[in-house]
């Protein structure tokens, strides 16, 4: 861009992807893999250089660039869906088809998690192919400032705690219902600023001690 242009549709659509696509994607993937393998732990995502159109955050953009392509239908919540700049960014960098129904999605990106649609509306996979389910990426999360939940299951030595939000009040009940569906169910990635945490469907939420 050698001439001064306002922050127009044109410039935001061309927001850059990874500076080093091969190694940045590898590093981001390892963080996601570690998060999924060790539920409740926080993993760092390097977000320098990424300036995606709002409300897409650099951390969510890194996840998207790492995992999405034309083989992965993606569902967007309203704030993302109503942004042409976001849709252009996703189309340009990933080629992922944007779908209208949560159940059609391999990935769902949610930037307003307080108004999250029920987890049950996403694809849960089938009994024979439980892998054909939606991975839900929840943005705008703050770790360590909300009432923690206690976790148990594969990837967790004894027990772990996760404190994240904002989330709808019914959220943890929905997560419990989701884990009872095992091996079907959705997997969750919580994305904060430069850090993520994940809950695979195999994680059980223990009832909070009174």
């Amino acid at each position: 861009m050698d001439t001064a242009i306002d922050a127009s549709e044109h410039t935001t659509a061309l927001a850059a992807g990874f500076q080093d696509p091969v190694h940045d994607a590898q590093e981001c993937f390892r963080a996601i893999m570690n998060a999924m393998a060790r539920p409740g732990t926080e993993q760092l995502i390097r977000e320098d250089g990424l300036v995606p159109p709002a409300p897409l955050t650099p951390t969510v953009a890194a996840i998207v660039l790492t995992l999405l392509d034309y083989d992965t239908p993606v569902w967007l919540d309203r704030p993302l869906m109503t942004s042409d700049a976001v849709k252009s960014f996703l189309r340009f960098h990933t080629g992922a088809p944007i779908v209208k129904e949560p159940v059609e999605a391999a990935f769902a990106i949610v930037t307003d998690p307080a108004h999250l649609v029920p987890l049950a509306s996403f694809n849960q996979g089938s009994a024979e192919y439980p892998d054909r389910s939606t991975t839900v990426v929840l943005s705008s999360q703050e770790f360590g400032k909300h009432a923690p939940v206690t976790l148990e299951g594969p990837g967790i030595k004894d027990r772990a705690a996760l404190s994240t939000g904002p989330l709808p009040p019914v959220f943890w009940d929905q997560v419990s219902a989701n884990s009872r569906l095992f091996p079907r169910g959705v997997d969750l990635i919580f994305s904060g600023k430069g850090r993520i945490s994940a809950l695979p469907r195999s994680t059980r939420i223990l009832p909070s001690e009174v």
Partner: protein
Amino acid sequence: MNDTAQIFDQGEYNFAYLDEQTKRMIRRAILKGIAIPGYQVPFASREMPMPYGWGTGGVQVTASILGKDDCLKMIDQGSDDTTNAVSIRGFFEKTAGVRTTYETSEATVIQTRHRIPEKGLREDQVLVFQVPIPEPLRFLEPRETETRKMHALEDYGLMHVKLYEDIAKNGHIATTYAYPVKVNDRYVMDPSPTPKFDNPKIDQMPALQLYGAGREKRIYAIPPYTKVKSLDFDDYPFEVQKFDKPCGLCGAENVYLDEVILDDQGGRMYVCSDSDHCEERRANGHLGPMAADPAATHFAGGASEETVQ
């Protein structure tokens, strides 16, 4: 590996050989595998510049997770020196330029065909298995549609019948390799051609385990600290192989031993199958009953000479 070396010299290839689109597809399969421990995730396996028997599934998994700061260890039959291990290590040195090691404790990613290191793995390590036949029910039911149904219904009666027939015929469960396990109280899984001696190591292991089957196009996983139980019966509990002798070279007990022929007069000894473990013990002054034997010393010397490359 000469043919393979020529392929590399002919053209350009991506970091760790696989293109980014393939890596993304495999990475997504790995995440599903982790989320559903023991479930075999189908993936679109790629042709690799090596025959299928050489662990192309494991190679594709390793290529998809490997970063430039990783340190890779390759094991085949417990040793880093066999053709298979040397070739695959060379493949990654060439295509990814990563550091490689023989030392278990130094590695961040360990790819193996038959053995799990004797030394306990850590949380910051990943163990990748090369799997020839991922479906534990395949010998009992050849149809994929049927085995998939059995896994969906958690219907593992056939597997128990097979093990019980083993007992009826042999007085014990005769399966010593690829001994089936149940993961997270749900999926019956084949732990690849590892000896059943190694089965207890995959239970509650601090390291993440990833399994790749290239020809059969399946990826599966066991997250860290996951319950993995070898199938057995109340009256015939699971038992690992026991060796009545220690390692001839380092004196280690409770490790997996290989028989080694020392000369053409029938001289033989039993040594650690995990060559790195054995060398480390000897370096620390542990001596086995054969350590002073000239033929055995020659064997040990030869092994460590090859290590220095």
